[in-house]
């Protein structure tokens, strides 16, 4: 019998109830686990590591001269989500992404939501992520965020909350697919015992979403990467291959007569849809950063002429900014006339003096984040921080309050995870991927990240997080 512990205090564990009984949807897995010897499980974990290394599912570490690549640790205990919970998540995600797309269209056109006073205009219009190059530009189907990765956590109260919307170039979907492949290879018998909803068709859905984004007949789609030194390069190459389309870098493309072409061995070939995996500012040196060698001169002109689709659109970052996040429930009410299905984490905007003083008075209990921050950098986790760190953030907040938001410290739910001492509860989150084309589609699953350090709430791979397979059980 494997020893499985609950988290300390009042946290929510995905496998264990408060009274230590196994939640029903984990019962078959738990029984299977107990029939396995630790030696066998250890051997399987080693096998997984070896396979991941051989396949090269690694990410390169910035500035590592020797060209070393790190593996993102993979944990073999899946995160299991019952069908009825997924149904709620799926409906909530579709609703949320529809509202975010409507918001993006609105702020680059008539700005109804600003005129209605739902969001202070300056928070949108002088936001560093607002791109005036997008003003008045009509996009096919009015779609901006074709691919969205929404980070969801479960709090100690058992409810799901949206932690963050990622609408620029969300990554991690390749891990969702590779983790599933690995689990099926290591433990095929588990998939006989469970009706796990398949995720393998994601690349097919992605390609059809990208093709639907263009009005061209039989559009040519490419994936655009900053290059193989990028930490997510594996994913870029993986998706291009899975979709059977070209993986291009900026230098492979050129613009002539407001049309985009790629250089091929048989001469220039026109490109209709670019699934771009680099940030706005690098994409066209004539419009954004002039010293960027990763982009394509003239691309934005071709884009504005309607001759090419960029997925995601330019300027989506203004909608996933942490200073805009608190308004998403209002957007849902405003554009869809619906009540939000998914909860937002209560958020204090430090730009407002009254909220700032509340935050400053409670720094030791709150999480403080930079509004444009990502990857788990530049944040303060009050309860885990030293006095000095708290005082440092107090100075930062006072100097530039508009740059920060604060939230209560959520107790991310835990899932049993293999660690050095055996199996222990570790905090997790989930990033499902939402595809918007003619319809909104979500493969049942997502990237499940796990904070491998005991007690840590930071799941980002750049901060030592690992991943798990996420199983959505079929009803």
């Amino acid at each position, binding site marked *: 019998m494997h020893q499985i512990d609950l988290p300390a205090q009042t946290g929510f564990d995905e496998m264990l109830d408060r009274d230590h009984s196994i939640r029903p949807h984990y019962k078959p897995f738990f029984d299977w686990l107990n029939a396995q010897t630790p030696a066998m499980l250890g051997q399987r974990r080693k096998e997984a590591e070896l396979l991941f290394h*051989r*396949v090269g599912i690694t990410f390169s570490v910035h500035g590592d001269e020797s060209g070393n690549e790190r593996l993102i640790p993979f944990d073999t205990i899946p995160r299991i989500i019952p069908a009825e919970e997924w149904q709620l998540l799926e409906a909530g995600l579709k609703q949320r992404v529809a509202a975010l797309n409507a918001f993006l269209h609105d702020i680059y056109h008539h700005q109804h939501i600003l005129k209605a006073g739902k969001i202070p205009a300056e928070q949108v219009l002088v936001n560093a992520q607002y791109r005036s190059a997008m003003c008045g530009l009509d996009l096919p189907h009015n779609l901006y965020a074709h691919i969205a990765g929404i980070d969801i956590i479960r709090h100690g109260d058992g409810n799901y909350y949206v932690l963050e919307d990622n609408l620029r170039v969300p990554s991690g979907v390749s891990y969702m697919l590779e983790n599933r492949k690995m689990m099926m290879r290591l433990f095929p018998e588990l998939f006989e015992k469970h009706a796990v909803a398949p995720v393998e068709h994601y690349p097919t859905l992605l390609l059809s979403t990208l093709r639907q984004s263009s009005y061209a007949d039989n559009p040519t789609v490419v994936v655009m990467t900053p290059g*193989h030194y990028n930490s997510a390069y594996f994913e870029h190459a993986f998706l291009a291959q899975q979709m059977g389309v070209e993986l291009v870098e900026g230098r492979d493309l050129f613009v002539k007569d407001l049309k985009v072409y790629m250089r091929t061995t048989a001469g220039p070939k026109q490109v209709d849809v670019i699934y771009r995996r680099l940030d706005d500012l690098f994409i066209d040196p004539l419009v954004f950063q002039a010293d960027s060698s990763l982009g394509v001169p003239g691309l934005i002109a071709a884009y504005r002429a309607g001759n090419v689709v960029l997925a995601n659109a330019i300027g989506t970052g203004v909608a996933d900014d942490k200073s805009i996040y608190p308004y998403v429930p209002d957007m849902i009410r405003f554009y869809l006339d619906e009540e939000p299905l998914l909860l937002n984490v209560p958020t204090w905007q430090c730009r407002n003096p009254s909220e700032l003083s509340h935050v400053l008075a409670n720094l030791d209990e709150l999480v403080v984040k930079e509004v444009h921050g990502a990857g788990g950098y530049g944040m303060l986790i009050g309860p885990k921080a030293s006095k000095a760190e708290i005082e440092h953030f107090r100075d930062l907040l006072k100097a530039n309050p508009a740059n920060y938001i604060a939230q209560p410290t959520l107790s991310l739910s835990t899932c049993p995870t293999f660690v050095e001492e055996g199996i222990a509860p570790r905090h997790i989150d989930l990033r499902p991927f939402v595809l918007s084309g003619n319809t909104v589609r979500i493969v049942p699953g997502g990237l499940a990240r796990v904070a491998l350090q005991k007690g840590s709430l930071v799941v980002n791979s750049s901060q030592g997080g690992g991943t798990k397979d996420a199983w959505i059980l079929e009803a």
Partner: protein
Amino acid sequence: MMLSRTADHLYWMSRYLERAENLARLLDVSFSLSLLPQSQGARAEMRAPLVITETLDRFSARYPKITAEALLQFMALDRDNPASILSCIRHARENAHAVRGKITVEMWENINATWLEAKNFEANGIANVGDFFDWVKARSHVFRGIAYGTILRGDAYSFIRLGTFIERADNTARLLDVKASLIAQANKENPQDAQDYYAWSSLLRALSAYEAYVEMYREGVEMRSVTELLVLSPRLPRSLCACLDAICKIVAQIEGDNGRLVQREAHLLLNDLRFTEVDEILEHGLHEYLSECLVEINALGNTIDEAYLRVA
């Protein structure tokens, strides 16, 4: 049809792997010859890899004299020597990495494993020189076999093979040129103590051509027949003629109209190799003839680059 940059990476992936293999072949022979007793030409033999890879100056700047140990260190596992076997494998793997979506999973896993094992050699040293060279050759053979057995027939496969044969043609010409001048030099210095047999047969072994030679000529190993076999025989897979024949067939299959000049140059070179007699070459001077071949192979490489691979 494929991206020019993709074609470029595929082409150089296989060129670098072929180069690593050829280097292992060359070093293997140099080492075994330098072990022969009373070998007057031992020193010269060990110079050959440096001359062929054009790294003699770089080597001399770092090592006082050419010893077997220094040569191995420099040519096998030296990261700072861009021509070392380790560097070639690294470049091959980096090119594969850049287009891993365009090669099969088996090809990628194989070339990645080769690189990881090469790093093990780098960390732990080479216990047995012969085993190491055999390992390099085997990895190259296995990769070629996997490519042959797994990848879709199309432009990707064409550019992979184009890289192999351009590199191989270049290597065969260089190897024959340098060996022939080494042997001529040795014969001039010690006319009574000719090492011809060992030198020529070692060259044949380096190119896996010894068995073919014996089967085709059944006579003592000598320059005229060796030249005929390595330059003009369409049946020997590493001969210049066979390489050019392969190149002509490959470029005919590449999609699009960009390759007319490539086809023209390759066919002119092939026709020359097909209809030249070995005595004409020897009359003209082997070194002169091979030098001209190298210039033309190099020019063909440039034309391929301009026609298909140039990105910006």
